[in-house]
């Protein structure tokens, strides 16, 4: 095992008995179970871990949590490669493979770093000012810019992992498993409320995980956490989800959370990788803690520059020193705790540089007592060392803190820790669209009033309350109060106690730490590390008038990186406020948009991919079609038999055979997908009168009628045949795709407009399998298997229906036709469908009965000019446009859409009309969608007068046939028009839509 040179001899929550092997950039290292990738890399002395986005500056680990801007890592390889993963949040497991990114050829030697040398020419927004020549040059420049940009590399292979989705409901949801959150969950849980506690880390404890010697209720803090965890686990109504990030606060108290189930185990784990939780809570307690702000000092991005709190986490939680010799820069007291903890762990602290004139707080004193030098009223003016901090320069601050004076002190070190104060994690609060307000004491934004309907309360550090005892008390009270409000009355117990922290002195806000050179002319003062935005860039944005926070963000890209500005937003805002001479809240706040941390696309999709993307609907005899070689097409959610190719047949051959056989003898089609609605009630006929354009009251029971439905805008909405079963009972059919839409339409009009009408609608699409026999021999086939009725023309005329038995199964037969040929539509219960279909097939054997698919169905109906709603229509066609003037009930007082037909444009006689189209060359089959012109020009533009809606080869007409909608088409019969497409021009004559003048008539 290689030595972990920065690993401390003792301490931390790592399991030193379980070494874990991992690789970074191809090199093998060891860490311990419980390490993060960041802590393990630090333990091994690896401080250079990445390159910045724009300048490709060498970068190290900055934080110990979700706010990490620099240490973005590619995890895994091949189809599991995952770019841009934050090193502090990657849990170490055996075999973990990781790599740095955004560098070429290597992390140590990155050619992209030339950008850094030229950085003077690449200020914010430089690309808006350049790359403008020549006029179409941008695509050329863009190639290079795109290659330089981006961070990690995405996999081009399909993600092999599974994801899960689940809904949760609770009384009290607690976000954050630190002291305040645990206290809240305990109180609410004890009272009897249903509680969900989520925390993004691998174990509960929050800030306590990084503490050295705090105690709660007189015992070590983590013992208290363990006891609380055990108590919560024993409560049946409480659920604790660790490794779970609440990333979005949605309307009506719903939180989206992502649970990382196997990411810490690796690709060999079983089960889903991650799970999406949608949790609806009656009350949400936000105990999300706070994030430390770095100071904006010169060269503050050198590898080895880190947040003071992060340094402390590495020492206390992971038993790892971030380096061998540390300088701390601070404007507040909290960084002194880091100094003390480092001293306790035996890590050398060279000095604490304090921006404050004369810090005298208790922790400062304690630090001095440990023999650590405190350099007050001073600043770090330079950090030296390109790939690793080597030395810092320290100078005294001038009286106003805007510049530095005096001599330079060089201090040797390999790590610089900074603390610029703390910003409560107000993201979720803000996502509810509630405001945040600036707190002058904390110099931070704290949650403002909550939004109505979004019942939440922020507690602890998330609210700007930092004392441990206060956090415990606040959390407890919030949990108990929520439970009480919802009527849970068991004893919530009392709040846990902790000793008070030493009194702290106020921080000194200093949003840019001065250097010996003007900002922007010496070293770089980074504000947003990942996107390489410096204080000078903020000044440039100000100079150029990009003053509002949003302009600043967009112009400089500040806060737009994968960390979404967790460590940079407030600093940038404050610098802008200084430049504008305004208070920070006057400048505005940024909008916190979800997600809190980036969330895997796959987990949003969950299992709803592939065949589960959209339900697949199949008819009851789907398997028969498949067994007989059918090709299928998607029609809405349905899979329908398209055609049945025999060996050696092309689609064209098969369709011709099916069409011909049907016209000549008999064909059979599975029409079960047709929408079917059962309509009953005394007002059923009245209702049909309103929704169809034609009249229904006089239709006799036993008869069928074809009708159009229009929207209130007068445009055709659906069509179909409806039959009167009894006086107050109808059977409606709709288009396959329109079935659900029509049912909703009927229900909407009934419930909203005519609720007093007694009429009831039931979808029966799935209750009837429908087989249509078509062709001159269809009666002969049916006769062999039907019983109970006389099929003769006289006894069972066209446009009527009869109940009977087919092959021993109760059936209902409709004499309606979508081919113009003699036709019987046999409806049977779906469970008998296959039996009946087979019976019809055997009965038809002697007549060469031919199953046909949707393509032949289309050809057969087009041969007789029957329209398909959705093909001949597109929401802009009236029944009149389609040539169905006769179907408008002139005598009928009212129907949906009637008044719209009278509007000036809708009533025009020269609208687009549906007509037939015969190509001059009968062999030429037009493409559907081909556009029609009256006069051909050499080149576009040409004035179009319509388009082809349907077009086929008709084996029965022995030529191509087409339907089209053409401006004033019915008054242009016989006129020749032209169709320019695919580089040619086809001439065609406008004709009637019945292409089989001699064909079999419907009622033959």
């Amino acid at each position, binding site marked *: 095992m290689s030595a972990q040179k920065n690993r401390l001899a003792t301490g931390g929550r790592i399991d030193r008995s379980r070494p874990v092997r991992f690789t970074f950039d191809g090199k093998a290292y060891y860490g311990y179970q419980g390490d993060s990738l960041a802590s393990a890399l630090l333990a091994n002395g690896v401080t250079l871990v990445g390159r910045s986005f724009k300048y490709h500056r060498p970068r190290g680990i900055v934080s110990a949590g979700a706010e990490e801007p620099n240490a973005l890592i590619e995890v895994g390889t091949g189809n599991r490669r995952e770019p841009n993963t934050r090193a502090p949040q990657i849990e170490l497991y055996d075999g973990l493979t990781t790599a740095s990114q955004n560098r070429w050829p290597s992390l140590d030697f990155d050619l992209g770093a030339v950008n850094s040398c030229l950085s003077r020419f690449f200020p914010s927004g430089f690309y808006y000012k350049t790359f403008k020549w020549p006029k179409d040059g941008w695509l050329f420049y863009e190639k290079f810019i795109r290659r330089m940009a981006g961070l990690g590399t995405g996999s081009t292979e399909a993600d092999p992992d599974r994801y899960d989705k689940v809904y949760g409901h609770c009384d009290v949801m607690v976000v954050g498993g630190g002291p305040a959150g645990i206290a809240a969950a305990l109180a609410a849980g004890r009272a009897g409320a249903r509680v969900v506690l989520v925390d993004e880390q691998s174990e509960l404890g929050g800030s306590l995980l990084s503490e050295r010697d705090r105690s709660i209720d007189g015992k070590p803090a983590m013992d208290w956490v363990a006891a609380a965890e055990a108590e919560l686990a024993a409560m049946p109504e409480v659920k604790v989800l660790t490794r779970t990030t609440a990333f979005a606060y949605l309307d009506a108290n719903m939180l989206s959370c992502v649970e990382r189930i196997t990411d810490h185990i690796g690709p060999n784990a079983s089960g889903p990788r991650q799970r999406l939780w949608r949790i609806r809570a009656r009350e949400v307690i936000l105990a999300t803690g706070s994030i430390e702000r770095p100071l904006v000092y010169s060269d503050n991005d050198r590898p080895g520059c880190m947040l003071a709190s992060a340094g402390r986490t590495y020492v206390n939680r992971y038993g790892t020193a971030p380096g061998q010799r540390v300088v701390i820069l601070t404007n507040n007291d909290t960084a002194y705790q880091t100094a003390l903890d480092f001293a306790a762990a035996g890590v050398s602290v060279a000095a604490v540089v304090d921006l404050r004139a004369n810090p005298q707080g208790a922790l400062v004193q304690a630090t001095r007592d440990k023999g650590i030098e405190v350099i007050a009223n001073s600043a770090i003016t330079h950090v030296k060392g390109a790939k690793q901090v080597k030395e810092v320069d320290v100078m005294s601050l001038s009286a106003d803190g805007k510049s530095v004076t005096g001599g330079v002190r060089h201090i040797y070190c390999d790590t610089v820790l900074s603390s610029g104060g703390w910003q409560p994690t107000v993201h979720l609060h803000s996502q509810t669209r509630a405001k945040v307000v600036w707190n002058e004491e904390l110099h931070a934004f704290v949650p403002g009033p909550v939004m109505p309907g979004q019942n939440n309360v922020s507690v602890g550090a998330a609210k700007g309350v930092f004392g441990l005892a206060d956090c415990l008390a606040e959390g407890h009270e919030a949990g108990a109060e929520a439970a009480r409000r919802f009527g849970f009355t068991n004893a919530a117990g009392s709040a846990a106690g902790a000793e008070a922290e030493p009194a702290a002195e106020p921080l000194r806000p200093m949003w840019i730490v001065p250097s010996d050179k003007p900002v922007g002319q010496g070293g770089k003062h980074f504000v947003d590390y990942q996107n390489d935005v410096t204080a000078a860039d903020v000044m440039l944005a100000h100079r150029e008038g990009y003053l509002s926070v949003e302009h600043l963000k967009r112009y400089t890209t500040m806060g737009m990186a994968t960390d979404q500005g967790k460590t940079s937003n407030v600093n940038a805002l404050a610098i802008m406020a200084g430049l504008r001479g305004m208070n920070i809240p006057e400048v505005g706040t940024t909008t916190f948009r979800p997600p809190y941390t*980036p969330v895997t696309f796959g987990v949003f999709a969950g299992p709803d991919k592939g065949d589960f993307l959209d339900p697949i609907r199949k008819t009851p005899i789907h398997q028969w079609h498949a067994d007989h070689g059918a090709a299928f097409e998607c029609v809405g959610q349905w899979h329908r038999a398209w055609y049945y190719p025999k060996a050696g047949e092309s689609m064209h051959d098969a369709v011709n055979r099916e069409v011909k056989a049907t016209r000549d003898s008999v064909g059979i089609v599975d029409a079960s997908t047709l929408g079917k609605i059962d309509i009953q009630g005394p007002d059923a006929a009245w209702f049909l009168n309103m929704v169809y354009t034609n009249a229904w009251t006089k239709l006799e029971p036993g008869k069928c009628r074809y009708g159009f439905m229009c929207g209130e805008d007068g445009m055709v909405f659906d069509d179909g045949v409806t039959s009167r079963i009894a006086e107050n009972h109808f059977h409606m059919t709709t288009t396959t795709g329109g079935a659900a839409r029509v049912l909703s339409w009927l229900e909407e009009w009934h419930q909203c407009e005519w609720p007093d009408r007694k009429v009831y609608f039931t979808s029966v699409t799935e209750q009837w399998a429908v087989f249509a026999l078509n062709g001159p021999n269809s009666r002969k086939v049916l006769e062999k298997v039907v019983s109970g009725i006389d099929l003769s023309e006289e006894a069972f005329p066209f446009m009527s229906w009869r109940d009977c038995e087919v092959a021993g199964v109760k059936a209902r037969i409709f004499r309606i036709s979508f081919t113009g040929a003699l036709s019987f539509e046999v409806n049977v219960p779906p469970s008998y469908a296959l039996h009946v279909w087979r019976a019809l097939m055997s009965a038809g054997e002697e007549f060469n009965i031919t199953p046909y698919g949707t393509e032949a169905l289309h050809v057969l109906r087009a041969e007789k000019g029957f329209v398909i709603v959705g093909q001949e229509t597109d929401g802009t066609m009236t029944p009149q446009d389609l040539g169905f003037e006769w179907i408008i009930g002139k005598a009928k007082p009212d129907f949906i859409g009637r008044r719209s037909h009278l509007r000036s*444009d809708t009533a025009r006689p020269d609208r687009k009309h549906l007509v037939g189209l015969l190509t001059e060359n009968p062999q030429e089959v037009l493409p559907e969608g081909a556009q029609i012109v009256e006069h051909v020009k050499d080149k576009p533009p040409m004035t179009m007068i319509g388009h082809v809606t349907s077009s086929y080869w008709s084996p029965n007409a022995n030529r191509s046939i087409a339907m089209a909608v053409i401006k004033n088409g019915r008054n242009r019969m016989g006129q020749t028009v032209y169709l320019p497409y695919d580089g040619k021009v086809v001439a065609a004559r406008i004709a009637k839509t019945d292409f089989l003048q001699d064909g079999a008539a419907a009622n033959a």
Partner: protein
Amino acid sequence: MKQNYSIFTLVRNALNYHQDWQEAWRSPAPKPEYDVIVIGGGGHGLATAYYLAKEHGITNVAVLEKGWLGGGNTGRNTTIVRSNYLWDESAHLYEHSLKLFEGLTQDLNYNVMFSQRGLMNLAHTQHDMQALRRRVYAIQLNGIDSEILTPEQIKEMVPILDCSATARYPIMGASLQRRGGVARHDAVAWGFARKADERGVDILQNTEVTGFRIENGVVKGVETTRGPIGAKKVGIVVAGHSGVLAGMAGFRLPVESHPLQALVSEPIKPILNTVVMSPQVHVYVSQSDKGELVLGAGIDAYTSYAQVGSPFIIENQLNALTDLFPCFGRLRMLRQWGGIVDTCPDASPIIGKTPVENLFINCGWGTGGFKATPGSGNVFAHTIARGEPHPLAVPFALDRFTSGYLIDEHGAAGVAH
């Protein structure tokens, strides 16, 4: 004149640590009266002001913006630019805009990064293919570039697309507009603002209109949070709030405001070089120059002014995305947001006169406004300046809802944007 932006001025300024750059636009105090007030400092409003000044010589113009310029849908869209519309009226209007986009960087002396990398519309069913052919043939005859791709050609252009026949909705073909692409949305607003300002237009940010001064049916000015401002003519270009402003002026619109959500992934190295849209499975995606995948889909069904939508819209969109691009499953959503779009019953905009004299309106762009920015501003400026609609704007007048002459792009777009 504004400082010129070029590689030379950039280098020159670099030598002086960029101390000498001028402000891109002024922050003037409002004058008591303007010849024209444009309400709305989004892309369309700023473009309107720019073209009023540039093409019609009307420079005594104010743009009133209640927040920060470009802060509405201009800064919230998925930056797609195309002109592949079915109906002649739409095709001509959007093509006018696309042509202006093609010279916009030079015209504005501001790189709007118009990347004509091609835009692909996928078809997944026979029905899709019919509609796609109809559209492509119409676009071609309107003199606009469009072509049909086979699945093999699609696979070659976008190898990471799942073109397998076993997909739930297999890809059967696509239309391609090579001149389509994406542009840098903020830059469009800023570029127009800078040049409008140069020509004397006052851009008044943080100035909210609270009412209209209308005398005898003629608009005379507006009430604002910074006091009353007089105007000879007023144009309303306030996507997301058109109904609110129309209400203040006393007329109604056939408009509903809806949330439209979009999202980006974390930035990655180039992986997708074309804009891919699938109306059937409801998603559209492109990769920004920064490396983020930029995704959009349909609107939320309910009316809202909240810039917030429902999560299942996002989930459906990512279902579709990871189904089309199985390798995107491990990428992560970085940021998600919403805008407010004003939708018309026929999914086409309204440009023209209002019942109030000298008050004009430009609204109802639905999800498709960004691509129209220069064209919309251009024809609206003409309409305001002349008091008569620009020929391209004539079909988009408000009275089409009375006559029934709608320009119904619903069927054509499937999912509009």
